[in-house]
């Protein structure tokens, strides 16, 4: 078992004909992911990596039976791509796009909550179930099948940690990048809930950062509901207040969203706190 994606996932890529879309869908196919087709309006009938391109998501789903969509289209067009995937009935939408206007995301969020689709991201590295499927950017070699669930706001920090875990012999059930934007489709709490229910997952690693209160909500959930041990790392202890640290969501405002308050809440909830992501494997023992 795993969460969100596995070897039976049939993946379509919105934006497959672009430079990044081509490269990463190639990497995903190489990893063994069942990429069944792509969508680029105006390019229906073309082929990329031997997979058919469609003009519409609806057309692609009808022809291929895709049940996961990965979105890799530029920010100004991403909201429309998400609506199209929701309307085509795709149950799992993974949006990697960075730079979507927040107003677009608030509109998307409302529509999404009235649908049966789940959205991961945007502005995220995607999802990896080692040995089965990869939907996103994570480098192919970092993961290793195992029993630790990983959930993170950040991309490269996840690669760093997952690579260190794999090297130390701690494989992963699924690695989920939820994204660094203020408004995201799936929260830490929802992913923790999935890991808690997943039979393969025995322990969980959570990587958060400054800004917002998603990690505080996660701590409350851990305290109330999690039976599996959690190791956590929070990035941004050295970040000054009032300055946005790259991610649109990573900012301490009015004394809220500091690394320390998140660390304190997670520790109080029983999570083990790593000071350095490279020491996470030591805390999994």
């Amino acid at each position, binding site marked *: 078992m795993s969460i969100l994606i596995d070897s039976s996932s049939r993946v379509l890529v919105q934006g497959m004909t672009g430079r*990044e879309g081509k490269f*990463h869908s190639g990497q995903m196919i190489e990893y063994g992911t069942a990429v069944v087709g792509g969508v680029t309006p105006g390019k229906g009938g073309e082929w990329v990596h031997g997979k058919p391109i469609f003009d519409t998501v609806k057309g692609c789903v009808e022809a291929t039976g895709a049940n996961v969509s990965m979105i890799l289209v530029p*920010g*100004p067009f991403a909201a429309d791509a998400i609506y199209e995937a929701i309307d085509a009935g795709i149950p799992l939408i993974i949006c990697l796009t*960075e730079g979507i*206007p*927040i*107003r*677009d*995301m*608030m*509109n998307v*969020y*409302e529509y999404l909550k009235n649908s049966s689709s789940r959205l991961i991201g945007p502005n995220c*590295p995607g999802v990896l179930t080692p040995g089965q499927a990869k939907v996103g*950017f*994570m*480098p192919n070699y*970092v993961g290793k099948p195992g029993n630790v669930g990983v959930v*993170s*706001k*950040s*991309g*490269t*920090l*996840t*690669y*760093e940690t997952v*690579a260190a875990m794999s090297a130390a012999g701690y494989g992963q059930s699924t690695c989920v990048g939820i994204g*660094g934007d*203020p*408004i995201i489709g799936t929260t830490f709490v929802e992913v923790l809930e999935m890991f808690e229910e997943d039979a393969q997952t025995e322990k969980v690693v959570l*990587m958060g*950062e*400054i800004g*917002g*209160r998603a990690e505080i*909500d996660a701590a409350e959930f851990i305290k109330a509901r999690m039976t599996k041990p959690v190791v956590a*790392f929070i*990035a*941004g*202890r*050295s*970040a*000054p207040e009032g*300055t946005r*640290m*790259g*991610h*649109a*969501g*990573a900012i301490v*405002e*009015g*004394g809220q969203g500091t*690394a320390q308050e998140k660390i304190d809440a997670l520790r109080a909830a029983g999570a083990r706190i790593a*000071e*350095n*992501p*490279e020491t996470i494997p030591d805390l999994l023992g």
Partner: protein
Amino acid sequence: MNLHEYQTKRRFAQYGIPVASGQTATTPEEARIIAGEIGVPVVVKAQVLVGGRGKAGGVKLAKSPEEAYAIAGKILGMDIKGHTVGIVLIDPASSINSEIYLGITNDRTTGKPVMMASSEGGVEIEEVARVNPSAIIREWISPSLGLREYQARNIASGINLPREHWAAFTKIARNLYRCYVESDAVLAEINPLVITGENELFALDGKMVIDDNALYRQPELAAQRDTSAEPLVETQARDAGLTYVKLNGQIGCMVNGAGLAMTTMDMIKLYGGGDIFPANFLDIGGGAQADRVAAALRIILSDPDVKAVLFNIFGGITRGDEVARGILQALKEVPTDKPMVIRLAGTNSEEGRAIIDDANIPNITAASTLTDGAKKAIAAARGEA
């Protein structure tokens, strides 16, 4: 992107929100003329993109045009938290009976805009939230419905606004919401919204922050960006497609990805023994090409406090060989004898390491991990390497 008070109030006026009929001046002489035209007393207000200008002496009352001249002379050029004042706003002074806070921002938890109001206007909403959280009334807004009239009434009643002002307040609240939405703002606030001695409501001060990701469709607002107040390197970084934030430490950092960039800074602080800190946050972004890496290195080295540079690149989309070529290209353009520690991992990192090794640069040290890189950079900054 932050708008100045005068830019915000101009925008508010376009949306039918009553504001003071002030004008901006960049010289004391202009301030004197404006004060004479709009009639004294006037308030001379520093236009800076940072809070706390009142306490810093950036807002003063002038009872005559000559006094406006003298005050503007003092405020123009004043340094407020590292921002130099280049513009003052001259507003007519008004009699104030009471002050209200009214603002809209996006709420992360619900994914909706939230309108907030408090009868304690004129102070920062964060301060009210800390001292008296129950004084803040909130209404969450459905993006598809917009702010409904009943919601504006809920707020008016919640802050105990006298009924005679409800009609005017509702109009202002709905116009503020429209302004927030159509401007792609992430924050639009009137603070304070005042009730005058003549029983009229108007926005005495205002603040707007525009979503950087939406500037492509807000050309009129994008053109109002004031880069004079920000450090030159931040402008250069934005132009090069980099995210750079200057800090006060000694180790320049170049990292790919925001989370890893913050973590790299944290490791410097963690192992820095209380005297060595990161000099900056710098995210070169995904898929960084050689020329972007070169631009990043130039920016880092332009900081005179930097004693050592740490590169931490974990390639996913970003390729180690591209980064390595970028570093060498930058060193040709901006030679430096400062010690540099390079840690490359992930996509094409072996090729990248080989490129650096072959160049045989004496002040470059390789590091194998994040921790190793941070410790070596700290030692280098202390002159121990």
